Each structure stands twice: as C-alpha cells, then as structure tokens.
C-alpha cells in the first residue's frame, strides 16, 4: 500500500491554515475515504459533509488540487501522488469549520422560485420525448459546485442580485416541464438576475452531473426573457392586456 499526503484546510470562519496528514492509499480509494481515514485515526473533529458516497446526494463538495469536485467521486489514483493533495472548502460560501461551509443562502434563493403548477385541464398524458428533454435539469444533486465557480458569485459576491447557475437549472426544469403553466420570465429577469450571467460556461465545466447548464438551461432562458420583454409583438400584447 502506498502513502499520500493530504493537505487539508483546518480552521473556522475567522482563521485557519492547511495541515498535512499522511494517509495510506488503497486501490480505488477516493478523496472522501482519505478524509475519513484522517477523521477516524488522526483528527476526530475534522469537519466534512457527506452522505451517499456514490455521487448521488451532492454533500461532499470541496476544492481538490484547486478544482471544485465531489470528494466521493475523486479517485486518489487520478491525482499526482508525489505531491500533497490539497483539499479546501468551497470558496464562495462562508466557512463554518474545516471543509464545511454555510450553504444556507442557496436554500433561501430556492424559496423565491414558485413550484410546478399544472396547466388547467391537463389530462396527464406526457410523451417520453418531452420527459427526456427536461430530464437533464432534474438530475441536479445540489452540490453547489457551479455556484462555487461562477465568477458573479465567487469574485463579485452578488448573492443579493443573482441566483446562480443551480437555480437557472431549476427554473429550466420547471419551465420545460411539459405540463407546467407558470410564467417565470419576470422572476428570472428581475429577481434571479439572469442578465448578469455573461455565458463564461465555468459552471458547466464543473457540473458532476454533466448538465449543459449554459447551453441548455441558461441560453434558452435568456431567449425566453428576451421574447417576453423585448419582443415588440409581445410588448404590444402586454400593453393591450394592460400587464
């Protein structure tokens, strides 16, 4: 069995530093296993979130060697072992302790998004093709890695004005539900700050569920907002209907 060095952030909201820990590496081991080894044998109070250990719950997000990843899906043997493996908490959220950050802001944003509402009179027949089209957005495991890398949140900290890619994915999943009857265009424009996204695609690159966040969710939603608010015909209709 070989050995690796895990360089883990230890600290709280005020201060902290990285600390090196030696860990034995077993075949197929993932970074979360290594963190558990440290917790179980060296530092019992090392704070880490996890649940499924199978890439299904989105709890174990961190920055491994500078890349935002699920630690339960990051294999040790995919990382260079001749140098320390650094594991840092997600940078865009306030630190609580060690690798655990305060992600409650995401839950507050989610409250702003009205849930599914069926169109009146629907007969609940849906074609598989329509299901396949939205399936992609509904795969989201809420790991918040996309939120973590998006520069609008990471560099500019515009959490009040901007909902972030995760929630554009959520709106896309609702809007493209074949039977949904709500219009969320005004919400996207005014409250969720869709216009602030300048299509850098960083979010798409880190999504462990391989959701094409930018191309398939954000861009179509932007088009929808344009149609709704800037299309002359729609604007005329709105005038006439007095909305």
């Amino acid at each position, binding site marked *: 069995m070989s050995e690796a060095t895990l360089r883990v952030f230890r600290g709280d909201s005020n201060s902290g530093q990285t600390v090196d820990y030696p860990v034995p590496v077993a075949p197929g*081991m993932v970074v979360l296993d290594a963190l558990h080894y440290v917790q179980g044998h060296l530092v019992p109070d090392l*704070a880490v979130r996890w649940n499924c250990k199978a890439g*299904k719950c989105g709890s174990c997000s961190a920055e491994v060697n500078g890349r935002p990843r699920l630690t339960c899906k990051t294999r040790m043997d995919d990382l260079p072992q001749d140098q320390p493996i650094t594991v840092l908490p997600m940078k865009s959220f306030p630190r609580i302790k060690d690798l655990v950050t305060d992600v409650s802001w995401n*839950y507050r944003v989610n409250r702003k998004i009205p849930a*599914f509402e069926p169109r009146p009179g629907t007969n609940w027949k849906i*074609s598989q093709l329509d299901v396949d089209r939205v399936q992609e957005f509904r795969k989201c495991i809420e790991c918040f890695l996309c939120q973590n890398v998006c520069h609008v949140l990471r560099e500019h900290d515009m959490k009040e004005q901007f909902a972030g890619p995760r929630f554009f994915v959520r709106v896309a999943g609702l809007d493209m539900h074949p039977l949904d009857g709500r219009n969320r265009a005004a919400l996207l424009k005014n409250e969720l700050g869709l216009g602030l996204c300048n299509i850098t695609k960083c979010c798409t690159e880190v999504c462990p569920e391989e959701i094409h966040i930018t191309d398939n969710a954000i861009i179509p939603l932007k088009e929808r907002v344009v149609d709704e608010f800037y299309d002359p015909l729609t604007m005329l209709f709105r005038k006439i209907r007095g909305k």
Partner: protein
Amino acid sequence: MTANYETREHDVLIIGAGGAGLRASLEALAQGASVGVVCKSLLGKAHTVMAEGGIAAAMANVDTADNWKTHFRDTMRGGKLLNNWRMAQLHAQESPDRVRELEQWGALFDRTETGDILQRAFGGHTFKRLCHVGDRTGLEMIRTLQDRGVQQGIDVYMECTVTRLLTDGGRVAGAFAYWRESGRLIVFKAKSIVIATGGIGKAWRVTSNSWEYTGDGMALAYEAGAELMDMEFVQFHPTGMVWPPGVQGILVTEAVRGEGGILRNKLGERFMEKYDPKRMELSTRDVVARSIYTEVKEGRGTEHGGAYLDISQKPAEYVKKKLPSMYHQFKELADVDITKGPMEVGPTCHYVMGGIRVGAETAESTVPGLFAAGEAAAGLHGANRLGGNSLSDLLVFGRRAGLAAAQHAKQVSAPSIDTAQIEQSERELLAPFSNTGVESPYAVHRDLQEVMQNLVGIFRAEEDLKKALVELGKLKARAAKAGVEGSRLFNPGWHLSYDLKSMLTISEAVTHSALARKESRGAHSRIDFPNLDSLWEKKQNIIVRENGAMQRRENPVEEMPAELKQVLAEDKS
C-alpha cells in the same frame, strides 16, 4: 442549570426529512397544523435521495392485469406472511393515488407509448409495477416533496439532531436536540411527534447506508417507552459493489436485474437456476442474497468474493439510458464499463423491516402522541421487503402519520415540559467532552461494525448471537467512556458519540430478537433452525424498555379477515 437552549413550539414535530417525513409534514400542514421538520443533514440529502429503482404501485399502466390484490399478495408472500396484513392492504390500495399525487406536484416519471407512467419489473412483483425515472427515482421524489413543503411553509431545522424525546406523564411533550453546526441546544415543544428517521445499516461494516442510518428514531422511541417489533429482520441487498475496497457495499440497484441483468458465478453458471428456477434473478432479495453468499462460501465466487452481474447483452445505448447512474458509478469508481462486461457484486446491509410498532390506520406507536412512518416503522414488510415497496410505504404511511398526528394535536391540550429531563439530556450529550482521550468513538464504531457483520449477518446461529450480546456489552462500556477533542463547533467525533449510543441500543435489540426467533423466515436465516415454524407466524417479536432494562416479549398477531385470506389464496402460483 440555566436555560442554555432556545425553544420552539409546533403542533406537530416531524423528525426526519426523507420521503416519509416530508410527506407527513405536507399532510399535517394541509390539516392546518403548525409543522416543524428536523433533520441531521441538509434538506434534500436524506436516504430517499439515493433510491434508484422506483416506486411500487399497482397502476396497471404496463401490465393491465395488475391490481391492488396482486400487489397485496406479492407483498405478503415476499414478507413470508409476517406482514401486518392491514398495512399491506392499505399500502397496495393507496399507492397508485400517492404516485399520481406526486405527479400532480410536479414529479416527472418515465412514460409508456401512450403517455402514462412507465413501470418496470422488480424482484417478487408479479407484474411490471415500479414507477421510475431512469435510476434516480428517489431524487425526483424528494425534490418534489421538499420544494412543495418549502413553498407551503413548513419550518425546516436542518443539520439538527434530536437526542431525546421529552414526555409528560405517559405522553409525548417535545424533543431535545442540538445544532450540528454550532453545537447549541434547542428544545421543541410539540403535541404530536412523527418519527421518520429511517434505518440502522451503519451498524454493519458492509452497507449501502450513509452515516445517518444509526437507528436514532427507534432508539428515541424505545427510550420513551414505545415497543419495537421484529427487529431481527434486516435486509441484505444481494447486489452491492465489492471492489475496489473503498466502494464496498455501495448499492447496485435491483433495476439492473429488472432490466434483464444476469447473475453468474466464476464458472460461468447462471446459479439462480439452482435456487429459484422460476423467478431466477428476480427472486426475492433474501433468496438472491443467500444464493450469492452460498456460491462464494462454496468457492465459486469471483476474484474479489462476489458474483458477476451482467447487463452487457443489452444494447449499450439502452443500458446508458435506463441505468445512467450505474453506468457512471462503475466507470468512475471501479473502471468497469457495464455496457461491455460484468459487474462484481455481493450482499450489502440495506434496509430494516423491523422498527417501531405502530397501528396500521394511524401510524401511532404505543406511546400516545408518538407516530412513526417509513423505514423507522415496522409492519408493512414482514420478514422481507420487496424492492420498490419502500418509496410507496413512505408516501402512504407518511401521509397517514401526518394526518393522524395533526388530528391528535387538535384534540389534546398543550403538554408541559419537564426541565429535569432537559437537564439530564444536556448532561448526557455533553459528557464526552469531559472524557477526553479515554476511547475514540470511531474505534468503538469500527469494532461494532465487525461484531454485527460477523456475528449478526446473513446467516445466524445461537452461539454467534450469544457472543454478539457479550461483545455489545463490552462496546457499551467502552462507548460510555468515549471522549472527544475540540469544541462544539461542527464536531463529527462528538456527533458520532451520540449516534453510537443509538446504534448500540438498536444492535442489542436486533441481536436479542434474532436469538429468540428459532426459525428461518425471510431475511432471518438461522443455520441451527433452517425451517419455517408456523407458531412464529402467529406472534410479534417485541422489544421494550422496562425498569430501565431491555425486555423481550411476544404479542399475538391479529387474525387475518376471511376476505383477505381469500385474496391470498386466489392465485395458484
């Protein structure tokens, strides 16, 4: 001691935010109750999110001959007739409506050609019955429920662990808990409490369960005087990953077999022909798990001590579409492309059929005001659960529990809180900080997992079970001395020292119950008593706390009414 805690008050307090807890909260809310939901993890991360294969409901969209009677019969037979027949009946009758309701709240299932909800085959189900979304059904379900809950105004206390139920005389009065993040204390006052805390699998070494599955809810109920029932029935799912070591135990969904996956031993033999020639790979889980175990034990296992499960005879595109997360799981964690070659699989501790004894209609336990639903409750599944019957269980009995809890809250006066109970809970919770360094909770947990894995596993024997009880006694003494380092700020070692207590209580209950049941039935296999004993069909195996100690006793089973007996007998197979 002064008030070191904040206090919150609700008509109905729900402990657990998986499918059962969320469904219960929606129903209690619909009844006009004020509802609080507490959970150990972040919202949306409960076990329900991991469920893959589907929800069982006799909707008859694919096999038009299906109906509640067949579902009832399958459930009873799968459970080796030990099921609470009334629960099995309600479950079979109400599941289709619960699934439709989920759809009306926005869940999107895979479809048939005619645009209805698609259903797939699963072990022990006569017909294609599992409503699903690829292999991420649980995710769809929990998101639908959680988003609806949040919109409707439930108060969610997340990353908050309940460590004790407070009682007023014989009835429930509230709960004592701490915030995992800050370590601060919180007391809930409530007229009704619903336990929806899930299972106990973390007490075994090879398990598909997460850190949350430490049996807290059952231990809480037991401490408050409720009866636990049929605790010996622990389901070992036949197919967990076996290699590499880090992923051992992670679930390989039964949907792989439902979609046509074939099991073989290292000689290439399709061994299920020997054990259940009729149902083959889609036999019930207890049978398939024992078959794999036996193949391995007799020297016909794979390189890493499992069996081969092969779906590569199906077109690659089909496999990727129907089993996307399995495809990624094997590719990323085991370097295996399941569209090209077989997976290696072996039994993994997965589910507990036993739990808190509740009434079928109301989900109320033997303690007034205390309800239980989902995996934490006993009764529906008898000696063995059929795949897909858990998600439907959560919806059917989650709803019933929420309804009854809200009604109960309307009828009773506000209970009073006994500060002595709070002070004692606080002392117990904080004790590990004064034990610094004596014993590590992680070490005790590892040893507990070995004991349960080796002595209370798939096959059991009197000698092993007795030895397990002795070992559990020693572990309890060690756990009481377990110390923690650091502060109360998000401290997993400290969190574990409480979870460990629950695991030890529940492990003891499982072992006592298993020792007493001198027969083999469903998931409980005694090598020293390999046959069914019809006397055991007529009684419930009960664990209860009396005079501070764990006692076991037997309750008679209520006779099944004639019309249900008729339903059971109808089918010739």
